[in-house]
């Protein structure tokens, strides 16, 4: 058998694996974490009584579930409001981050001046500014939280995108230079596609941050029906299962955002290493 035929066979096998993996593998991949999740829930449910943990310190999953159903109307209103803040901030922060990244990647002087600042700013606990944005925009105004979220996601998005735009295989640049490509062509055909995986990595971080920013931002003030306010006020009047139910919703929101980014990445970057083999 020729080497060619061998390679062809290998490729066909890889493709079959990919096709099979697309759904079957993904579902199979979801089984182990699901088992762990259920096991933890069961353990939680039955060990609390045995350990004598007070109900108000940590309610059982069944109690939280009951609160979720009971508080449906309040919670869905809260989650819509808070998700809007998170998404608004996410959109503004990502947009500005990407724009800043293109500017810094384009001009070397800008990069040398801005990138260290951005990397340093990345480690600032921006949530600490929440009381300040409340003063600026008013605590009832969702823009207060959007500003916090935008600021939180701006730096990781910018820093990652700059990396993606600049950390390009030097040989690829030589190749483009050899066919006298313009800077614009190099940007479009090499730098931008190279930056996409970096951008998606940043987006995954950013979605998680956005929910944290919005909910924690609301701890410092916001309308009564916001998710963060709901959590603090229910805890204040000792309705802990309701507070827990809202926390569960906040977690679900973060995970939901993350999964959306993951799905978009799968579709947008079918060529990327992380998407090559669905099954191991």
């Amino acid at each position, binding site marked *: 058998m020729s*080497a060619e035929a061998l390679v062809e066979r290998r490729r066909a096998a890889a493709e079959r694996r990919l096709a099979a993996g697309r759904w079957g593998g993904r579902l199979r991949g979801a089984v182990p974490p699901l088992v762990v999740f259920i096991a933890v829930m069961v353990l939680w449910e039955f060990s609390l009584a045995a350990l004598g943990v007070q109900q108000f310190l940590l309610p059982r999953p069944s109690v939280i579930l009951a609160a979720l159903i009971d508080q449906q109307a309040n919670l869905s209103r809260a989650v819509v409001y808070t998700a809007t803040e998170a998404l608004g901030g996410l959109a503004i922060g990502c947009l500005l981050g990407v724009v800043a990244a293109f500017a810094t990647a384009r001009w070397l002087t800008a990069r040398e001046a801005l990138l260290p600042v951005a990397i340093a700013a990345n480690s600032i606990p921006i949530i600490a500014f929440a009381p300040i944005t409340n003063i600026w925009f008013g605590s009832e105004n969702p823009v207060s939280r959007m500003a916090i979220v935008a600021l939180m996601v701006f730096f990781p998005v910018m820093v990652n995108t700059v990396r993606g735009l600049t950390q390009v295989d030097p040989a690829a640049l030589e190749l483009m*230079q*050899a066919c006298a490509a313009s800077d614009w062509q190099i940007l479009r*055909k090499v730098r931008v596609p190279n930056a996409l995986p970096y951008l998606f990595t940043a987006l995954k971080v950013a979605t998680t941050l956005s929910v944290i920013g919005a909910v924690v931002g609301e701890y410092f003030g916001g309308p009564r029906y916001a998710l963060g306010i709901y959590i603090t006020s229910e805890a204040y009047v000792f309705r802990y299962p309701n507070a827990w139910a809202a926390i569960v919703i906040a977690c679900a929101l973060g995970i939901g955002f993350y999964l959306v980014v993951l799905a978009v990445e799968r579709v947008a970057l079918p060529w990327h290493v992380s998407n090559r083999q669905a099954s191991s």
Partner: protein
Amino acid sequence: MSEPIANGPQSAIPPAQHVVEIVGAGRTFGRGPGAVTALEGIDLTIQAGEFVSLIGPSGCGKSTLLRLIGDLIPATTGSIRVNGKPAAAARRGREYGIVFQAPVLMDWRTVERNVELPLEVMGYTREERQRRSAEMLSLVELADFRRTYPWQLSGGMQQRVAIARALAFDPKLLLMDEPFGALDEMTRERMNLELMGIWRRTGTTIVFVTHSIPEAVFLSSRVVVMSARPGRVIRIIDVDLPQPRTAETRELERYFELVTAVREALRQRGDEGGAGALDDAALRIRAEGYA
């Protein structure tokens, strides 16, 4: 500088036309006490249809010389002309294709779209791009793989895609920097045979960097032997093996003689202390001495 009249395949090509003309070229990296002179006093003329290999110890400036010809970096001294123009003008006029040791394929593009990349840069129409990529992929025998992604291919196949891409716009000159250096011996020999086929069919002038003596002798019409740093041309050996080169070529007695001649030339650089290039006529006599 008088060029030896080429024998072998070039004789079929009408009046000698200089595709590459290098006069007194040198390249120094850095400044001051830390400066590294990678190349010094390079004189080399390459005619249309030739297959010229550059061989020499690692770090002797082979890649640098290829980059000078391609105007990917400027020379610090001397002049380099490609197709009768300064190298920079030739690069801007897209007069050469280049292949590196790594295939440098874009992961996000299918094989066919990788081949089309330079054509897109040059503003070819979509139909023209597709026509040419199909043609080039059948030239390198990868027509069935045009919709696959590079990572689904073996190393040898990826390098063939890189060759197809370099040839897609019919450049008169093909620059290759150790294109098969990362391949195993078997694949490399097969790729050598295929490259010979491509060279014959396209009539492209090829400048080929290698550190493999057998590869240089098998492929080339001339082998340029370079000395260690600073890189200089120490000998140019005409390879008068019959064309077309086939698997049997590697069994010819003359083939072994030429391999020995190149090896000796590479070894002598030490004894001669990297002495300047001997003139072409003397080199030819030396090389013929092995006949």
